[in-house]
């Protein structure tokens, strides 16, 4: 390849030599290069294929708006698709691959799509692929997806670290160009806490590509001196390679810092990207402008480039754009490029200025064609000539291999529109300007329409100083000094439609949307800006139309015969540029995705061979397999039978536990539970039902009175946090006059249940006091001394299984040794640990409910708890709404047991209950099985179900129907209490 690197100039380190690869080919560049500048320096203009027509595409811009030069960078888990070569700093060993081509970039079969272009115009998929509908999945969609595409994401895990952090400052400056640097210095020198960020690797913005001098110093050197001074100020933070992607309520700006995306081997102890959330007392938007392309035929041929980008490659990277260049401009900025090209010794053939009246005094050597336009560019994979239409209509072809175009400037106002403000069209500027109301976000520099370096420095300095003064700092505006050699481009009239165009003229390069597509949209009734976007796809994909939107709006306006003001813009939303999932995720993935909660008996259970199950954040022991057991059912059946005949121990630590204290604690509980708690004696536990205000059951659990003014509440595992929040609302918001204090003690107490006919004998061995039925009857709840006074715990005689049962709570740290002590004490009684599966079987056998039944649609009477709704209490949560018509209806679904007629048959939870003989359709649904299990006690599957009038239908034969797996089981409804309905075992 020919080298296009100029012999001198540029902000590159010519001593360094960075080797990289493009499509497997080895090339080199210098430190200071971007991937794009290094490719251009190597004469590589063709860098990608377009989205729809697979047209050859080159590098169009030098910044964030790049629509064409999207590449896949890196390999393995570090593969990153759709990376803009213009924003990627070069590093040694960088691997880049072009996209959307097969078999190769130079020879791409997909380019045949170009021949089909008459059929692929805007809206083609709405028209061409309408029917038959079934071909969509099999044929059309796979075809379209294969043909039209960007890069492919990797399936491998990303090995790198990402982090998120907050920052607070007095003044945030977004954009470190002339205005931004002047503002940051003005405020920073006065001591304000300033953060200034810029998306490029160096601060300086347009100064880095500028040939003018400031106070006799070159613009890049001046920018460096300012940035260096900012770096020395302890109250100022300069963030480069950092893109502010969104402006949010409360003047919070989100930004991503690409901290290690420019190095070959990222330091594993540091993040590759850091997401900042910056809380700014004041914020300044100094983001400059985006230069617009011009819509002539073949404007996408490699070699055609935005004028400002060409100037950037020339001055900042010392890259010549070609051997024979031309400039097509609508404004004076083209002359700055002309001067710089000629100064660098690059041959400039012609300047085509669309303005017949142009007043600019051009003194260079190139031909100047006033009032002329480039109608078409010619060439295949590289530009070879341009067809120029002169003011008088005459045409001529000019041989060039590089063409710069400037269609005017659009302020980069995206962030200023993120909080709902609408951009305002300005005829003066020929551009959309920021909303008039920007609520605390101040703009300075080119983004306000200001032109020229002097004015931008002055405006930035003034704004920065004023904002610092508003915050109480004695700030003075920074004085940049005299600027020499700045060609100031005043706004010029936009040129939307160009005469004489014959070839494909692109508006949106990334989506292959041409000028004709927009005309078609208007013609077919989709001329509204939002409709046109969807109809043509203009402004979609990774660049979101940064380069194309304003031109598209201009063309729509002309086609509709209205002003761009009337067309308006689509909505600006974050993100300004694509943000990696890694940055958004930060460290919250894998083990850090969510916390893992382990009971204080987790290691104890593990020691005894537990199989664990994840329930929410918790790990619970499911069952404890023993040698010879080959299925979980064998283990669970054994555990259940052992509890029913001997004694078992189970970890129930994950139940929510809340201490309710204060002299009004009893009154408080009386109001949050539907049943009475006011007169619960000290030393007693009571089962409580908590309703929502709409009358439906919220949660249940036992609450024990430990002292007059102290209660110990348990909640279900799943609702522990919710109940705590609910109680806090009641205590703080509803009844602040009650003296009540709440404390979550879930993690402070470990709790185990000791269950079975031999539970008392087991526990008596470690509990110091008498726990006989007389001394410690059913529902007793007391603090007890353990192991001869070595430890105190809380003992509750409550039962979820229907057996003689206790729950023993001890401080979490002692839990494991106490559980081992219980096992030791119960050895002679045949004690075995059991898990949550056996716990579930035991409770279904006893007809006890959980959140399977408390499903948000049941009221107390549905579950047979009608007596737990106090009629005496004047008020409790849910009372007022319980009397509603639908809640007192006789045929409400209610809790019932269900057993198969043939004990060898079974059914599953979730199956529907149908009347015997009813057709198997959902219209005949009468309820569903809410819980089911194999019951060793009954000898078959048993279930709890919520069935229409269930309580009155015991004995009725029904069908349990599972429509999904097409199973049905003949069954009988019955009393939901399968075990010891007389509750004799509880009271032994």
């Amino acid at each position, binding site marked *: 390849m020919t080298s296009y690197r100029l012999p001198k100039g540029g902000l590159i380190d010519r001593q360094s030599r960075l080797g990289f690869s493009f499509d497997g080919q080895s090339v080199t560049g210098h430190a200071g290069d971007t991937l794009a500048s290094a490719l251009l320096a190597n004469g590589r203009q063709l860098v990608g294929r377009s989205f729809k027509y697979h047209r050859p595409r080159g590098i169009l811009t030098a910044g964030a708006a790049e629509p064409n030069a999207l590449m896949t960078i890196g390999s393995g888990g570090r593969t990153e698709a759709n990376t803009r070569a213009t924003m990627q700093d070069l590093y040694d060993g960088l691997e880049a691959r072009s996209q959307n081509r097969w078999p190769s970039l130079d020879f791409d079969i997909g380019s045949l799509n170009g021949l089909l272009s008459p059929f692929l115009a805007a809206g083609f998929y709405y028209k061409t692929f309408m029917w038959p509908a079934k071909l969509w999945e099999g044929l059309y969609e796979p075809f379209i997806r294969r043909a039209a595409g960007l890069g492919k994401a990797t399936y491998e895990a990303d090995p790198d670290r990402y982090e998120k952090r*907050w920052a607070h400052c007095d003044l945030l400056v977004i954009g470190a160009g002339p205005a931004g640097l002047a503002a940051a210095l003005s405020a920073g020198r006065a001591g304000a806490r300033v953060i200034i960020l810029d998306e490029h690797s160096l601060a300086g913005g347009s100064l880095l590509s500028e040939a003018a001098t400031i106070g006799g110093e070159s613009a890049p050197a001046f920018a460096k001196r300012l940035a260096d001074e900012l770096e020395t100020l302890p109250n100022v933070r300069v963030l480069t390679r950092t893109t502010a992607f969104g402006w*949010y*309520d*409360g003047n*919070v700006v989100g930004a991503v810092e690409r901290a290690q995306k420019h190095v070959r081997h990222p330091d594993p102890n540091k993040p590759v990207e850091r997401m900042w*959330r910056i*809380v700014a007392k004041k914020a300044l938007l100094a983001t400059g402008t985006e230069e617009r392309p011009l819509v002539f035929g073949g404007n996408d041929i490699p070699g055609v480039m935005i004028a400002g980008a060409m100037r950037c490659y020339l001055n900042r990277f010392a890259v010549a754009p070609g051997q024979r260049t031309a400039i097509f401009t609508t404004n004076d900025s083209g002359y700055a490029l002309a001067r710089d090209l000629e100064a660098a010794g690059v041959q400039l053939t012609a300047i085509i200025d669309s303005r017949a009246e142009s007043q600019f005094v051009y003194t260079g050597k190139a031909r100047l064609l006033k009032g002329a336009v480039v109608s078409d560019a010619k060439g295949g994979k590289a530009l070879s000539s341009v067809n120029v239409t002169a003011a008088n209509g005459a045409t001529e072809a000019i041989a060039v291999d590089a063409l710069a175009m400037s269609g005017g400037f659009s302020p980069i106002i995206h962030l200023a529109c993120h*909080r*709902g403000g609408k951009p305002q069209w300005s005829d003066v500027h020929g551009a959309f300007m920021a909303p008039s109301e920007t*609520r605390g976000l101040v703009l300075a520099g080119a983004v306000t329409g200001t032109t020229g370096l002097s004015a931008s420095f002055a405006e930035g300095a003034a704004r920065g100083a004023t904002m610092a003064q508003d915050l109480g700092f004695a700030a003075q505006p920074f004085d940049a000094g005299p600027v020499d050699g700045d060609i100031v481009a005043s706004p010029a009239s936009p040129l939307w439609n160009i005469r004489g165009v014959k070839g494909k003229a692109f508006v949106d390069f990334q989506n292959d949307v041409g000028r004709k597509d927009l005309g078609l949209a208007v013609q077919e009734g989709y001329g509204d800006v939002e409709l046109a976007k969807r109809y043509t796809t203009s402004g979609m994909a990774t660049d979101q139309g940064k380069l194309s939107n304003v031109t598209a709006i201009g063309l729509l306006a002309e086609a509709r015969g209205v002003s761009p003001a009337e067309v308006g813009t689509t909505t600006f939303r974050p993100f300004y540029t694509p943000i990696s999932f890694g940055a958004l995720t930060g460290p919250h993935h894998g083990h850090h995705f969510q916390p893992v909660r382990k009971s204080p008996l987790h290691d104890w259970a593990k020691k005894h061979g537990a199989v664990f199950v994840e329930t929410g954040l918790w790990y619970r022991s499911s069952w404890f397999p023993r040698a010879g057991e080959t299925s979980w059912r064998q283990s669970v059946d054994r555990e259940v039978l052992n509890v029913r005949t001997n004694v078992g121990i189970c970890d129930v630590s994950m139940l929510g536990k809340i201490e309710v204290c204060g002299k009004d604690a009893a009154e408080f509980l009386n109001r949050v539970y539907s049943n009475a708690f006011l007169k619960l004696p000290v030393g007693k536990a009571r089962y409580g039902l908590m309703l929502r*205000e*709409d009358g439906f059951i919220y949660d249940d659990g036992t609450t024990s009175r430990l002292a007059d003014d102290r209660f110990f509440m348990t909640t279900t595992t799943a609702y522990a946090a919710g109940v705590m*929040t609910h109680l*806090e*609302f009641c205590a*703080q*918001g*509803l009844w*602040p006059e009650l003296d009540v204090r709440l404390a979550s003690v879930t993690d402070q107490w470990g709790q185990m249940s000791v269950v079975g006919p031999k539970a008392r004998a087991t526990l008596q061995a470690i509990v110091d006091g008498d726990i006989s039925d007389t001394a410690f009857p059913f529902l007793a709840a007391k603090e007890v001394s353990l192991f001869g006074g070595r430890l105190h715990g809380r003992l509750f005689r409550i039962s979820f299984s229907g057996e003689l049962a206790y729950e023993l709570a001890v401080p979490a740290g002692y839990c494991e040794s106490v559980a081992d002590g219980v096992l030791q004490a119960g050895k002679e009684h045949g004690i075995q640990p059991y898990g949550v599966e056996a716990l579930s079987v035991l409770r279904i056998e006893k007809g006890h409910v959980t959140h399977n039944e408390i499903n948000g649609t049941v009221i107390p009477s549905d579950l047979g708890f009608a007596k737990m709704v106090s009629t005496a209490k*004047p*008020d409790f949560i849910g*009372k*007022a*709404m319980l*009397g*509603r018509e639908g809640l007192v209806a006789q045929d409400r679904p209610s809790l019932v047991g269900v057993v198969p007629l043939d004990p060898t048959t079974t059914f599953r939870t979730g199956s529907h209950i149908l009347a015997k003989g009813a057709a198997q359709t959902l219209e005949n649904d009468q309820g569903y099985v809410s819980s089911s299990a194999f019951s060793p006690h009954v000898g078959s599957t048993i279930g709890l179900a919520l069935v229409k009038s269930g309580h009155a239908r015991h004995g009725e034969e029904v069908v349990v129907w599972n429509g999904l797996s097409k199973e049905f089981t003949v069954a009988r409804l019955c009393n939901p209490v399968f075990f010891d309905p007389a509750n004799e075992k509880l009271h032994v």
Partner: protein
Amino acid sequence: MASLIPCPHCGSRPKEEFTVKGAALARPAPDAGTAAWIDYVYLRDNPRGAYEEYWHHTSGCRRWLVVSRNTATHEISGSRDVVLKLSAEAL
């Protein structure tokens, strides 16, 4: 939604620390009648502009707050602890 919520006890904090419950309504008296209760439990105004909501500083001081938020601009004009009186509108 606002990025930051001012807590009268903890200062300005990220919204992720808070949980919203909804309109800051006063609970009717137990005998207020079905209509008042249906209103309280189910019916909500959806105003454009000023709105008072209950927010819980879940990952902070765990106090319930009344936050005054503008539904159109997301601007938060203030917040106070729930024990302080509700505004006349809510009552």
